[in-house]
């Protein structure tokens, strides 16, 4: 009698396939578990970090509140005034120093009739009206003013015989750099 193979190929390979599918199931569950665990871990760390941040914020607020006392406010006000003084002093031109330098560079025959200072940004404009004997003396006076270190250039604005007719009235303009 001829042997008949009653088991199909499918039936004969069932056992190994079943084992494979179980493994696949396990691996699948494992992958899912790993994925969820990773998510859970990150979420947990995030919550922990937030909690520490909250504590740190509270500590910062506490120190800031401790700072909000009268002594610190007084210190703040004093420092604020000191900073203002520093700023104003750095831009302050001492008119007395400018005047002193003009005095030191005024020639004996020169008589001032008028001097005008105007403080501009970073410099002071000086407009002087002087009486001298003649144009040569006026030229010498202009030269003397150019010798002041802080003066860049000296300009003659105008010159004319003065009212009394006894000399020359010259108008001179020059700029002083900042003098501290």
């Amino acid at each position: 009698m001829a042997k008949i193979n009653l088991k199909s190929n499918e039936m004969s390979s069932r056992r190994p396939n079943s084992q494979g599918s179980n493994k696949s199931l396990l691996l699948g569950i494992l992958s899912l578990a790993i994925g969820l665990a990773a998510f859970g871990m990150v979420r947990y760390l995030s919550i922990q970090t937030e909690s520490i941040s909250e504590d740190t914020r509270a500590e910062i607020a506490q120190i800031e509140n401790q700072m909000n006392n009268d002594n610190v406010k007084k210190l703040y006000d004093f420092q604020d005034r000191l900073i203002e003084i520093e700023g104003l002093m750095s831009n302050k031109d001492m008119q007395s120093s400018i005047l002193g330098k003009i005095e030191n560079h005024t020639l004996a025959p020169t008589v001032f009739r008028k001097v005008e200072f105007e403080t501009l940004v970073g410099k002071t404009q000086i407009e002087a009206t002087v009486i001298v004997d003649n144009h040569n003396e006026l030229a010498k006076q202009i030269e003397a003013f150019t010798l002041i270190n802080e003066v860049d250039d000296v300009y003659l604005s105008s010159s004319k015989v003065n009212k009394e007719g006894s000399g020359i009235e010259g108008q001179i303009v020059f700029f002083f750099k900042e003098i501290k």
Partner: protein
Amino acid sequence: MKLKILFFPIALFVAFMVTIFFTKPEWDIYSAKQEELSQLTNELDDLKSGFNLIKNATKKLENLNPDQESLVQNAIPDLENDDNFLAEIHKSAERSGVFIVSTKVKNAKLTRTGTPGVVPIITKPVLQSVEAKITVMGAYIDIAEFIKEVDSHNRLTTPRELMIIGQDGTTEAPVVESEEVQTVINATVKGEVTFKFYKKVKNDKLQIASLIRASDPVIKSLLNGQFKTGIIENYQDKVTREVFRPIGAGSAGKVDIFSKE
């Protein structure tokens, strides 16, 4: 059976998707929180060390010479204090020997707006300036001395304009001849000095915490340990060592306010 085999790739896919769509954003949030925490920790450390520096500065302020403190408070007072301003000008005129012809305070409306003493809680006080024009008469040497005095006032002034005019007929110094000596009478000149003086309102309601959060430069400098007491010495060296002493009103009260007696 086939479904069981398919479970692994499906689960792998689901796990992958969970990682991508849930874990990744959560990781990003976590990273941001970590960064924020690191910033907060640094802020806290800085604040702690800054607070210690502020405590030291407070002690330093308490130990300052009372004159040094007054020097700063007089330089930029919290009120306009026109009485002190006038008294200091008068003192300078007296010292230099000039005669004050007139005093004018300009821009009054611009600089005096608002109700005195009422300052909004959050607003940081700002520096306010008042322009003054003083006209004086005297010899040039005295006027130059007066300008030197104004330059070195305890009340901080910044010059704007200066005009010195020789008075007609007196620009040339006359010489008086006596029996023994020749005396030069100095020519009379007129001086107009224009300068600014300042005030800064004190705001006791300021919140230090809000100033810190607003990165205010003053509180920042204190937190960095830069209590600028060196400016006091600099001010004393360059401007004045003399502290202005305000005058008192004396005894007041009279029946006929239109009479001199």
